[in-house]
């Protein structure tokens, strides 16, 4: 599809050093325990729920749907003084929109009656005959063995049954069934249908009415999860389309893909299409095993976090995604977490146009691979986390409670950590689709985005590792461990910090990274000499680790920010009164 997109600016990285958004304005302080957080439960709740004070949707089960349907039918039937069967036909015709039914009816009742086949009186004048010829089987029957819709076109019950049941078994079109007479449009309602057909067909018909209420109604949709029978009723005008079904599946109400906040539906659709088109090229990405970058033995990934330790004797610690040394990833370097960035090899000395094109095509695939691998890996990492959480809740929490002599209520922080991991993996995954489509030439936005994404990712890796590995020690312990309280403090802290990082990321992407403009001045204060982004030709894309991103120590002192936000840890310039990242004010101390 968008081959233009894929190719754009593939060799345009020399210009990267305009207003580079430095990644390390003060984040170096986050070495494990130095972050500030508040782990009282109250404050946790107030931050995690402030997006969703007003639920913008309702999850409906079958009974709820029927009840709502009955309610609107009653309303229309009462207001228009028509039978319930007619009200149901009208509502079906106007997609269950009560207002539309009202408007149309009171504007021109006759037209509406004609369009929907709701006749007021019979159109044939043979009402007094004792016997009729059935227009379908051509047999004569006494009148009391024949049926007609409001029009008075009589057919024998056997023919009616065949007619209605054929229509029901043809699909939901039976909800619009009309009299068999080809010149007549009289509607055939559920009352007549229930007199004529088998119990099985009645069930089918009533199922179609139910489905119509969900599927034709603009406010309602089925949950797309396989086998789920819940529907979701959505209130128009709410800020987010993300809904969470009672079956635990979260999806976007607008496009019914899995939830993809903060990335918009169009980008998601493009990305999914792209993945389909490239699926053959990308199969190898989904392999679960990679050679250790040091000893070359195949290492299998059977954990959620990306921090891999090779088996003894090698024990090399590396990053699953970029195969770089783990020590380069944030914590120790005090530097820029750049694993999320895609860097194109420089196009030096390529004068041959054909060769340049080949190189660009290769880069475009390499670029896509970079984003796709991160998208897909976060996806599988999330699934692993979902399974781990289930295991945690069904087995481990109880075991841990025994071993560490803690009541289960005191272990809530573990579940919260895992829920945070699951949500963050989802967000992070979609930000890679976002990153893929973010134009290369919007340097400031790109760098701001990669910075936020990098920080969020780095925080998440620490959180995931802590929940996955450090917890293991306490699970396997013989009895209560000394360090358990420290562990609790650390995990709860990482949860809270990671949540803040992701809230920043989500907010920034939902604003279309518009903060870049207002923050431009601040971001430019960091000297472009610190720019570590561009690797040499054949850099990370090929699995080597020649990154040159460690910039912290060379930063001129006067550029260093003066205060760190206690809410999101963003480093703000001295002149700012409120946090430039989250707009909150520091509490007075």
């Amino acid at each position, binding site marked *: 599809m968008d081959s233009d997109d894929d190719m754009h600016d593939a060799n345009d990285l020399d210009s990267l050093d305009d207003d580079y958004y430095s990644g390390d304005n003060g984040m170096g302080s986050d070495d494990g325990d130095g972050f500030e957080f508040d782990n009282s439960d109250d404050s946790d709740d107030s931050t995690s729920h402030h997006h969703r004070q007003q639920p913008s949707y309702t999850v409906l089960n079958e009974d709820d749907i029927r009840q709502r349907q009955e309610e609107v039918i009653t309303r229309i039937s009462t207001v228009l003084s028509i039978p319930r069967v007619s009200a149901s036909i009208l509502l079906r015709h106007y997609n269950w929109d009560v207002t539309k039914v009202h408007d149309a009816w009171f504007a021109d009742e006759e037209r509406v009656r004609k369009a929907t086949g709701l006749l007021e009186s019979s159109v044939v004048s043979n009402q007094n005959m004792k016997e009729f010829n059935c227009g*379908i*089987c051509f047999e004569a029957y006494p009148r009391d063995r024949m049926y007609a819709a409001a029009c008075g076109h009589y057919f024998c019950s056997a*023919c009616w049954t065949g*007619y209605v049941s054929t229509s029901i078994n043809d699909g939901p079109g039976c909800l619009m069934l009309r009299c068999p*007479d080809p010149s007549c449009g009289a509607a055939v309602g559920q009352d007549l249908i229930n007199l004529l057909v088998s119990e099985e067909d009645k069930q089918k018909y009533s199922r179609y009415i139910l489905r119509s209420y969900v599927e034709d109604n603009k406010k309602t949709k089925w949950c797309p999860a396989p086998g789920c029978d819940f529907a979701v009723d959505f209130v128009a005008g709410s800020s987010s389309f993300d809904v969470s079904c009672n079956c635990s599946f979260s999806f976007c109400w607008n496009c019914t893909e899995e939830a993809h906040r903060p990335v918009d539906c169009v980008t998601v659709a493009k990305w999914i299409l792209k993945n389909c088109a490239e699926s053959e090229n990308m199969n190898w990405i989904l392999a679960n095993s990679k050679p250790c970058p040091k000893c070359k033995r195949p290492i299998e990934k059977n954990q959620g976090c990306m921090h891999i330790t090779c088996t003894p004797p090698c024990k090399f610690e590396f990053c699953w995604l970029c195969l770089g040394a783990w020590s380069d990833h944030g914590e120790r370097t005090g530097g820029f977490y750049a694993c999320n960035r895609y860097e194109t090899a420089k196009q030096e000395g390529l004068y041959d146009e054909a060769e340049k094109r080949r190189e660009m095509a290769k880069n475009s695939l390499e670029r896509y691979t970079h984003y796709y691998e991160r998208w897909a890996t976060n996806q599988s990492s999330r699934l692993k986390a979902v399974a781990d959480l289930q295991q945690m809740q069904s087995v481990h929490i109880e075991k841990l409670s025994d071993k560490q002599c803690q009541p289960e209520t005191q272990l809530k922080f573990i579940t919260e950590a895992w829920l945070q991991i699951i949500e963050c993996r989802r967000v992070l995954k979609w930000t890679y689709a976002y990153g893929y489509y973010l134009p290369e030439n919007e340097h400031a936005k790109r760098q701001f985005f990669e910075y936020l994404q990098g920080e969020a990712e780095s925080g998440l890796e620490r959180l995931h590792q802590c929940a996955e590995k450090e917890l293991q020690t306490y699970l396997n312990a013989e009895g209560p461990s000394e360090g358990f309280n420290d562990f609790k403090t650390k995990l709860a802290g990482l949860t809270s910090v990671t949540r803040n990082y992701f809230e920043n990321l989500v907010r920034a992407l939902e604003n279309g990274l518009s903060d870049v403009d207002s923050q431009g001045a601040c971001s430019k204060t960091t000297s472009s000499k610190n720019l570590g982004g561009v690797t040499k030709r054949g850099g990370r894309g090929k699995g080597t680790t020649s990154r040159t991103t460690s910039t912290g120590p060379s930063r001129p002192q006067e550029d260093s920010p003066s205060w760190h936000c206690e809410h999101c840890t963003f480093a703000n310039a001295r002149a700012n009164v409120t946090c430039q990242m989250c707009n909150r004010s520091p509490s007075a101390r």
Partner: protein
Amino acid sequence: MANSNLPRRIIKETQRLLSEPAPGISASPSEENMRYFNVMILGPTQSPYEGGVFKLELFLPEEYPMAAPKVRFLTKIYHPNIDKLGRICLDILKDKWSPALQIRTVLLSIQALLSAPNPDDPLSENIAKHWKANEAEAVETAKEWTNLYASGA
């Protein structure tokens, strides 16, 4: 063949088709299969098919009259709503079918379709395009085809 269980309706329809045929139309059941009809329709006057005799086949499926009969032209015909295989684009043969319609009404509708081709709802894209681009020329072709393929019968 399986004529023993023929519904009364089909028997009555057949009798009426034979005793009171519609003008320009003849339909007679095959001897081996009473659900299979050999049909002939005369090209309507004032149409490019005038003077032609068009052979069709009509079959009443098991579900008839709940399902529509299957009809197709056996004689080649140049018409925007009829394709190379003789299949016919006609609403009452599809979603507008009603069991209160009959073989007779179907054949009358097909005859009417010959008088009033509808290139806006085409089955044969090329012929429909031709019809819209240059109707006089398309009508000429239809006449030629009528002479070529529908005059001998």
